């Protein structure tokens, strides 16, 4: 019902055709469209991680740019200081570094809830942002750090003559594979006894404590898992962008992740995923359409909150439940 969660068979029934479409799509649409979709899938992984905290643990983070940025900068540092170009090393680096940052920040943040949690996560992410700006000899400052196109699968797949072909071909499928694994892993996590304990904390902290759930500890673990997923997304994002700059550490990027999730619906498992992909198209369209694109997105957000408080997926779900009852 209203609890996030869906039966496995039903999920497979509609996710299989969606996956098939995602596999076929690059052969049907122009390369730039495929690259655009790759961005959407990467953001979807970040939103998936973010929503473990918001939808399942009841904690609204305004600082998830920190973990996305930690993943991205980890990749840039691997290139700069170790000279490696393997995507697998990038992912490992992104996961480890974002995990460490989330573990440290989490210790401070999970002692608080509601607005205090939100402000603290935001403040900590702004610290990273200012570090990335000021320590320009390490981070490249506002110029950022360049990241070359990586090799995939331990060097088996390398870029050919054209970067666009690589990004819309092998790299797209690489992102898709990581996306599918991330979705599957997160699905199991939220349906595990641990995931149920998080939802219990969200619903009623005191009672959760009296069922034997150590609330702080579980919040912290959820925080770290959430950070790792977002960091993984950051590491996947860098090769698409070719460059990492302090922008992705800024709190406005955290705001975008919140936007993805609210747009799709945080009370559903797939809401944030759909929201991230749609937001990515929406922003791309708005940027090309008008210089006032931020205003367009602002209006969308206002309309959304007023008209579809449950988000896109949440609303569709409610309508289908109502239709099923009427039938």
């Amino acid at each position, binding site marked *: 019902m209203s*609890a996030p969660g869906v039966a496995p068979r039903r999920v497979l029934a509609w996710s299989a055709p969606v996956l098939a479409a995602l596999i076929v799509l690059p052969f049907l649409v122009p390369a730039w469209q495929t690259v655009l979709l790759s961005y959407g899938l990467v953001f979807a992984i970040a939103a998936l991680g973010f929503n473990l905290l918001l939808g399942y643990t009841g904690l609204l983070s305004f600082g998830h740019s920190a973990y996305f940025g930690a993943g991205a900068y980890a990749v840039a540092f691997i290139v700069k200081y170790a000279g490696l170009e393997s995507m697998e090393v990038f992912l490992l680096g992104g996961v480890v570094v974002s995990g460490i940052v989330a573990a440290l920040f989490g210790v401070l943040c999970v002692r608080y809830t509601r607005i205090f949690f939100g402000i603290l996560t935001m403040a900590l992410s702004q610290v990273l942002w200012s570090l990335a700006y000021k320590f320009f000899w390490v981070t490249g400052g506002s110029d950022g750090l360049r990241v070359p196109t990586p090799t995939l699968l331990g060097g088996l797949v390398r870029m050919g003559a054209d970067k666009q072909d690589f990004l819309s071909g092998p790299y797209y499928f690489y992102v898709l594979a990581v996306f599918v694994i991330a979705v599957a892993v997160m699905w*199991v996590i939220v349906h*595990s006894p641990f995931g*149920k*304990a998080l939802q*219990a904390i*969200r*619903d009623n902290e005191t*009672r959760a404590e*009296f069922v034997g759930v150590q609330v702080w500890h579980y919040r912290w673990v959820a925080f770290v898992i959430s950070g790792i997923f977002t960091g993984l997304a950051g590491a996947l994002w860098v090769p698409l962008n070719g460059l990492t700059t302090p922008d992705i550490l800024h709190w406005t990027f955290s705001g975008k992740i919140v936007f993805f999730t609210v747009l799709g619906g945080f009370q559903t498992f797939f809401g944030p995923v759909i929201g991230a992909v749609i937001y990515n198209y929406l922003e791309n369209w708005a940027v090309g359409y008008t210089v006032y694109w931020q205003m367009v997105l602002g209006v969308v957000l206002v309309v959304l909150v007023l008209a579809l408080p449950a988000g896109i997926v949440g609303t569709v779900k409610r309508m289908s439940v109502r239709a099923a009852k009427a039938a």
Partner: protein
Amino acid sequence: MSVDILKTTQLSKSFGDTHAVDHVDFSVSAGEVLALIGSNGAGKTTLINLISGLIPPDSGRVDFQGSDITHASIHRKIQLGIARSFQLVNLFDQLTVRDNVTLAIFSREGRTRRFFSVADADTAVRDEAAVVLKEFGLDGRAGAPAGGLSQGERKLLDVAVAYALRPKLLFLDEPTSGVSTREKAPIMDIITQVVRSGGITAVIVEHDMDVVFTYCPRIVAMHQGSILADGTPDQIRNNAQVTANMLGTQSG
């Protein structure tokens, strides 16, 4: 004589100038079903909060099965076998009725840390939850969200969640408050039946004297933070102090 499963010694808690619990010596024998009565503000709920760990005492000591648990964490107390329900029902409203109970089972088995197995796939836990729900007459509502239950059903589920922890000592804070008079007896029937068959020691805080006199062989009366009387229903009924302070306006 049976042994004391729980014993408090000079347990005290003040809120400002109010002595909510004032040097209370209170003991519970293993296996008994005991009622804690008293008017509003007598300190019943505070006493339970102190023992179960929701709030720390100012002074005094709590022993459970012979060991000092005064400052043990809530988690530790649950592991030792102390569980409780709440006066204002405390449930996981967005989870299903079944999941409210399975969570307690997973927690009891120390498995809530597992994040890489699907909870619903564990048939042993599901079956146990089904048995618990049946005992409480909630089997028909297993798939509904807990937030959608009636007040009486919520009261029962609140106790069922605590019961699924398989406690040795169970505190029930007003299990029949907020439900209609007609629902009270069935709820108490179920609770006392489950508690007795499980060999669980139970301390029931209750306002309704009819409920108390019917279901509890031992009654402890509190007044202004202290214990006023302790005895069988007949002794309590005929106790002048209790009558003056609590039962005065009631038929008894």
